[in-house]
Every structure is written in structure tokens, then in C-alpha cells.
């Protein structure tokens, strides 16, 4: 039986052999691998890029105190970005399943329409949920827009739900029973996270403090964006990545406030707009920053 970590090793190995940079998880809390700069910013612009990384993804509202066998506050996504999309992308993807020991001649694979949209990121794409014997194991998306910008090269984004995939391969009914490493269960490693963050997100998070934090991070992101000068010869030095971290903080705080039931109906749309405005601002500045400065072109 392959452990959770062995499956991750094999998938990373597989994609590394196909030209992907293997990144480590991003060190700011995110709701999905898509939000990491390795995806959100790298898909912009004309430069080809291939990357794979496992991203722990936090969804405060999905926490279940460790009680629900299939639902997690923090699950692990394997995120693969292939930019531009190779013609045989689906073949390559199916190959990755075979690499972790799934004989696709004896299993049922279906591609069912599933389009993806992230309003707070101004991003959307079309694609499928990939079903293996009735289980959704991967979200497959052709990005069309990100940060409100049409993409020059269309990247394929493959997002594997690693816990589900492992539970399937190990034939376990509960995520907590899957084997993370020989002799160590997922529950041994993660149960405390699930329990404690559920308590925090649903019961103890201090709403005024979270709002204050939200405003501080929002203010910092907005302050930086205002300082960005597309005409500056020095614009490459400008810390847009740091500004984007502030946006990610806002997004996570928004999700936490939401799970805490602290966002009223009238506020909700407005707060999403605030985050979106910052994310789109960073994306547009980033797209500009990646182009040579006016001065360089003139030389």
C-alpha cells in the first residue's frame, strides 16, 4: 500500500520529469493552490512556466471539528501549472494516475464539465472535474482570465485532491484513517489542526480584532499599489509580491470572518469587491512589471 507521502513523492517526481519546477508550499495561508503567486501571478504574461507544488489549503467554513470523515478545514492540493498547455496534456495527466498505480484499463475515467471561477481573484476558466470510478479526483481547468486580464498563453491547471485520492487508493472510508507514513495515520498528524481551528474559526476568533487586521492588511496593500509607478525605470524593484501577500491575508481573514458568521449580507458583496480590487490591482501591476520598462525599450 502506498502511503499519503509516497503518493505525493511519485506525483512530484512524475511532473518534475515533465519539466515542472517543484515548489514547496507557499508560506502565507491560502484557500486554494490557485491563490499562490506561483499560479496567480505566473500565469500572467507571455513567459512559459511549469510548476508543481503541494499547497495546504484553508477553508475555515469547511472545518468539522475532526468529526466528519470527508470534510476538512485544511486539505492538501497538488497544484500543477503547465503554461502553455501541451497538446497532449490529458495524456500526460492520465499518465500521472498510472504513475501512482492506477490501471486505467480496469478503472472508469470520465471528464465531466466543470467551469471554475474565483470572483475575488477576477479569474475564471473552463474545464472538467475528473471522475475516477465515481470519485472526483482532480479539477482540470484551462485558465482564460486572471486578475481580470485575458491570458497570453493559456495554462492548464491540474488540482489533485490528495486526501481523497489517497483514501481511494488505500480504500479507506475516513480521511483520518489513511496512512500518512508507515504506521502513522492522517489523524495522528492532522486531527489537532482540525479540532483546534474549528474551535477558533467558529467560536473563539475575536471579530473586532479580525476586522482590524483586515483593514490593516488592506491598507498596506492599497498603500503599496498606489506607490507603483509603471513609468519608473526602477519598477522591477517594486515589491508587488509583498503587496500580494497582504491581499492573501485579507482573503483568509474574510473567510474566517465569514465562517464566524460576522459578515452581514449587505457587507458581504462589498468586502468581496474590496479584496477583488486589490487582487486585480496587483495582477495588472505585475503584468506591467513583467514587460520591459519604457526606458529599456528606448535603448
Amino acid at each position, binding site marked *: 500500500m502506498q502511503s499519503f507521502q509516497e503518493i505525493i513523492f511519485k506525483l512530484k517526481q512524475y511532473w518534475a520529469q515533465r519539466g515542472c519546477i517543484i515548489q514547496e508550499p507557499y508560506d502565507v495561508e491560502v484557500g486554494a493552490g490557485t491563490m499562490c503567486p506561483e499560479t496567480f501571478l505566473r500565469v500572467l504574461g507571455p513567459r512559459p512556466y511549469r510548476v508543481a507544488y503541494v499547497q495546504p489549503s484553508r477553508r475555515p467554513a469547511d472545518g468539522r471539528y475532526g*468529526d*466528519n*470523515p*470527508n*470534510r476538512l478545514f485544511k486539505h492538501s492540493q497538488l497544484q500543477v501549472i503547465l503554461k*502553455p*498547455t501541451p*497538446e497532449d496534456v*490529458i*495524456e500526460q495527466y*492520465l499518465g500521472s494516475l498510472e504513475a501512482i498505480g492506477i490501471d*486505467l*484499463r*480496469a*478503472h*472508469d*475515467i*470520465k*471528464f*465531466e*464539465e466543470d*467551469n471554475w471561477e474565483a470572483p475575488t481573484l477576477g479569474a475564471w*476558466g*473552463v474545464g*472538467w472535474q475528473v471522475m*475516477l*470510478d*465515481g*470519485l472526483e479526483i482532480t479539477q482540470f481547468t*484551462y485558465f*482564460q482570465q486572471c486578475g481580470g486580464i*485575458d*491570458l*497570453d*498563453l*493559456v495554462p492548464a491547471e491540474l488540482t489533485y485532491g490528495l486526501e481523497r485520492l489517497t483514501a*481511494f487508493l488505500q*480504500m479507506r*472510508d475516513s480521511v483520518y484513517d489513511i496512512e500518512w507514513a508507515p504506521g502513522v495515520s492522517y489523524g495522528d498528524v492532522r486531527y489537532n489542526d482540525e479540532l483546534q481551528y474549528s474551535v477558533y474559526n467558529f467560536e473563539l476568533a475575536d471579530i473586532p480584532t479580525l476586522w482590524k487586521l483586515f483593514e490593516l492588511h488592506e491598507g498596506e496593500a492599497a498603500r503599496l499599489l498606489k506607490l507603483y509607478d509603471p513609468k519608473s525605470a526602477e519598477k522591477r524593484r517594486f515589491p508587488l509580491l509583498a503587496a500580494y501577500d497582504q491581499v492573501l491575508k485579507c482573503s483568509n481573514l474574510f473567510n474566517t470572518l465569514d465562517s464566524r*458568521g460576522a*459578515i*452581514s*449580507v*449587505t457587507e*458581504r*458583496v462589498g468586502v468581496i469587491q474590496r479584496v477583488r480590487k486589490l487582487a486585480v490591482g496587483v495582477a495588472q501591476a505585475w503584468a506591467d512589471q513583467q514587460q520591459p520598462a519604457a526606458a529599456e525599450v528606448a535603448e
Partner: protein
Amino acid sequence: MSLPFLLEIGVEEIPDWMVRSALENLRLLFEKLEIPHESVTLDATPRRLVLRAEGLPARQADSEERVLGPAASAPEKAVAGFARKQGARPEDLTIESTPKGKYYSFVRKVAGRPTKDILAEALPGVILEIYFPKTMYWTGKSGPRFIRPIRWIVALLGEEIVPFEIAGVRAGALTAGHRRLGAREIAITTADYEQRLRDHYVILSAEERRGKILKELKGVPYKPDHGLLDTLVYLTEFPTPITGSFDPRFLELPEEVLVTVMRHHQRYFSVEDAEGRLAPQFVAVMNIPSDPEGFVRRGNERVLRARFNDARFFWETDQKKKLADRVPDLAHVTFQAKLGSYLEKTGRTVELVKELGGDAHAVRAAQLCKCDLTTELVKEFTELQGVVGGLYARAQGELEPVWQAIYDHYKPESLEDAIPRHRTAQIVALADKLDTLRGCFRVGLIPSGSRDPFALRRAAQGVVKILVEGKLELPLLDLIGGAGDSAQLKDFFEDRVRYYFRDYRGFKYDEVNAAMAAGWNNLVDLLERLERIQNLRPTPDFEPLAASFKRIRNILEQAQFTGGAEFDPSLLEAGPERELYEEYQRIAGQPIESVISRLRPKVDLFFDKVLVNAPDARVRQNRLTLLNTLLAEFSTIADFSEIVTNS
């Protein structure tokens, strides 16, 4: 020579629900090329759209083209120049007489173009013009758009490849088999195409795939479901059904929940036992020919178990907080940004229920009907909204009319769906829909074209259907024409009422126009009047009388008749005019069905013999008043001048 043509567009998996309309579109675009052919066949799997045609000519017929040159009087040099330009010698030219004089002309023979060339030129456009509801680009933002990336193209006219290219994909004679059981490149001809696909585990014909599923399900007591079957036919290239089972203890959960999980989330057919009750089994359709090791069955069983466990977990968790205690939580659920929360909507719906004369049960149901939006089960299975609320209300001891009204309040979901089961439920459903419609129109969320994100057409259609079929004699126009209501709402409803009676109930369009012109505030009454018109229509007096009514209307309009003058019987002329009046007096107040045969000859005779436009102004006015009275008497059922007659 007559040739077969084969076009296969190889695509990554196309959303199943778009395939059939795409094929029809492909057919139309092909026909528009006006290339002669005998027959066209269309086929598709998730990965290919295929058009095959028989009997195409190798080349178009030759034609002649006449080119006029210089005038006959032109200098020799100009004539030689014209001939050279046409690639001809001066002696090949002829002189032609035209209305403007004599001119040199040249008859150019145009050889018919090879069909292959025409196709090569046209096919990229044909393919990229196929309409899909949502398209993508895949080679970059300046590239072509299609439903999913095009990965290969087969284009054969007879034995020859029709050469063209789309997004770097060159048309050829290589198709692809099943993703894992077939080869990636298979050389084919127009003759062996379908068989070669079959050898590589692709059944090209959707009908054959459907037939295979049905045949292999013989003897399995599954619940037929055409929509699901269609989906599965277009999700697979080699479908094979398998039967799995689940723990009978899950049958304690409501059947609605179990069926939804199977049907909507897993695309399984449910299975019934001998008594027609849900059995602990399901049918899944795989995209491979067999499952000898039972991997697929066990995998699906495990997924279903997890789903059912989830549902049970949600069901039990949700029970910890009663629906009634969830009302304040609705403040956190957005109905629509400009229209506030579901708590506010609930308040409005409750008021509307009272206004509609709903009983205490209806009021209670209206208070609780949106509470299930805060439950885990509905967050997970949104399509069960309403139903879940009803089930929880029942489990929590709400009275039968109350839980049933909650359960039914989204009904009818389509014109074919049933209306809520009793009056209490109908009132709640009406109030909910009317509030949505009034609110959305008030803030400018008005459907246009195919854009109707709040499903307002369905809501209005539901209101119409409930009023008519529930025999609710409520004043519709008052309900949608309040002080704050949008004027467009009335027009919107008028269309829905028309649509309901014409397209769903099958009344003729002019009958609907006629009956609605006499009012549509009370839809129950409108239906009765329509039925009367429908019965009257075949009778011999009806159309002539309708024609006469139209004539009366025209006369009154032309005379700019506004009424005013008192009718004076003493001014009546003896004969047809007086007879018409006396007949009118006898039949006034009686239903038109019983008097039409007496009225019609009098009207005919009147128009035959009497000059409405009498020289004496008082007589003329009196005649117009008589006609107007007659028209008004019989126009309460319908405006008969709207009836289209042959005369």
C-alpha cells in the same frame, strides 16, 4: 463521379448537454455551402463531432462568364489591351449589342472548382462557427475559440484528404480510439471508419450506445430516467452499466436525499424493489467494456457510502437546531444584493401570504420556508431546497399542511411539473414567487434575451400555472401593479400568460389574443372564456359574426365614435335596423353560445340593407350607439375582432 465525405472534429471532452445542438448547427453550416449531396449523417461521442455525407460531386459544374470590354468604336490598341487582359486573342472577342451601344465582349469559360478545394477553403470557418454556449481559447488570446481544444481533424473526400488547418491541427486521415483502450492514431478510410473506431472501443452512434445500455439493463428493476440516460450516452464512448449496492441502513434517510445523491451527484440510476420502493442498489454506467475484478463497482460503492455518510451526518447535525430557531440566521443569507437578506424576503412573503388570504398554516409555512437555506444538507444539495425544509418541518412536528407547503413551495419548477398539492401550499408558493418577481423588477433585474439569472420566467410561469390550475381567482394585475411595481412587470406577465395558454395549453394564438383583450386579471375566468371560444369556433355562425364584429369596430373607429348620446329607439328605421335592435333586447344578458345563431342573421341583414353613415347626423349617431352597445354586450368574453377569419 460521386464521392463520400467524412469530417471528424476531434475535441477534448465536450460537455454532454451541448453535443446535440452542436451537431444540428454543424449540419446547417454544411448545408449552407450548397455543395450538392444525397444524404447527411451526424454522429458524436464526447470526443468527436462527425458529419458524413454521400454523393458529393468531384467538382462543381462548369459555367460561363461574359465580360464586357471597350466600345465597338474603340481604337485597335484598346481592344488588344482588353483581349490581353482576358488572356485571349482579339479574334476571340465578339461584338455585343447592349442598350448603351455595341461593345466588345469575351465569354470566359469557368471550369467548375474541385469540391475538395471548396471544402478546404470553407471547413475552417464551418467548424469555428459551430455555436456553443460557452467557448474557450487554448492557443493564446488571439487564437480560435471552440468549446474545448481541437486535437485532431479527419477530413476525407473519397480517398483524398481535404487539406486545411485550424490552430496548428492539420486535417488528415487519422482518428483516435478510446482514451485508454484504443490507439491514439488510427488510419481510416470513409468506408472502414465506423468499424475501425469500434475495433478501438468507440461506438460512434449515440443510438447504439443508448441501445447497449438499455439492453444490458434488461431485467434490472432500475428507475427509468431519460435525462440521465442522455447524459450518460454523451459522457461515454463505450458505455457499460454495472449494478452496485449500499448498506440498507441508509434507507432510513429520506428517499429524496438518497435519490438526489445518486442521480445528480453520481449519475446513477436508482433501483426499486418488487413493491416499487427504493432498493439498496444502484446502476452506474462506466466508459469501459467490463469490470472483471470489480474495481469500478467497489470504487463507486465506496464513493456512494461516503456521500451517504455525509448526508446522514448533515441530517443529524441539522436536527440539532429547529427550523423555527433558524429564522434569525436568515439575516446572513443573501437573497440579492439590492434586495437584502432572506430574512427580509421572509418578512415580505409572510405579508403577501396574508394579503392573498392565506390561512394560519400558510403564514407559518411562509415564516419557515427559507430556513433550510441555513442547513448543512441544503448547502450540500442545493437542488433539495424546499424539500429538505419540508422534511425537517415534518420531523420537528409541524402540522401536515405546514410541512407540505414548505416542501412544495418551489413548485412548479417547469410547465410539466405539478403545482403545490393544496391551497395552503399554493398560496405560499405564489407569495414567494410574486415577491421575487416584484423585487427583481423593482431594482431593474429584468430578463433580456437568454439572460435570466434569477429564473424570473420560470417564476412567472409558475404563478400563472398555479393561478389557473389551482383555480385561484386572485386579481393578478392588482398583485403585480402596485404603486412600487415596475410597469415592465405587467408586460412580462402578459407574455407569460400568452405563452402558457398558447404553447402549453394549445389554444390558437388569435383566440388567446381575443380573450386576453377582454381582460386577464382573473386567469381562471380567462381559461373559461378561452374554452368557450374554442367550443364556439367550429360553429357556422362564429367566424362570420367575428368578421362582423371586426367591421363594427372599424366603423366605430373611423367615425371616431366616443359615445355620449343617449340611444333613442324612436330614431330606428323599420326593417333590419329595428329587427336587430329587438333581437338584441331579447338576447341581451344571455351567453353568446345560446344566441349566436339568432344574432348572426340579424347582423348580416343589417349590414346588407342599412347604411350606417346616414345623412341625418342624429340617425347616424343613433346607429353607431346601437352597434357600440351590441359590441360591448358580447365583448366581455372576448374581443372578437382579434379573431383571424377567412372572410
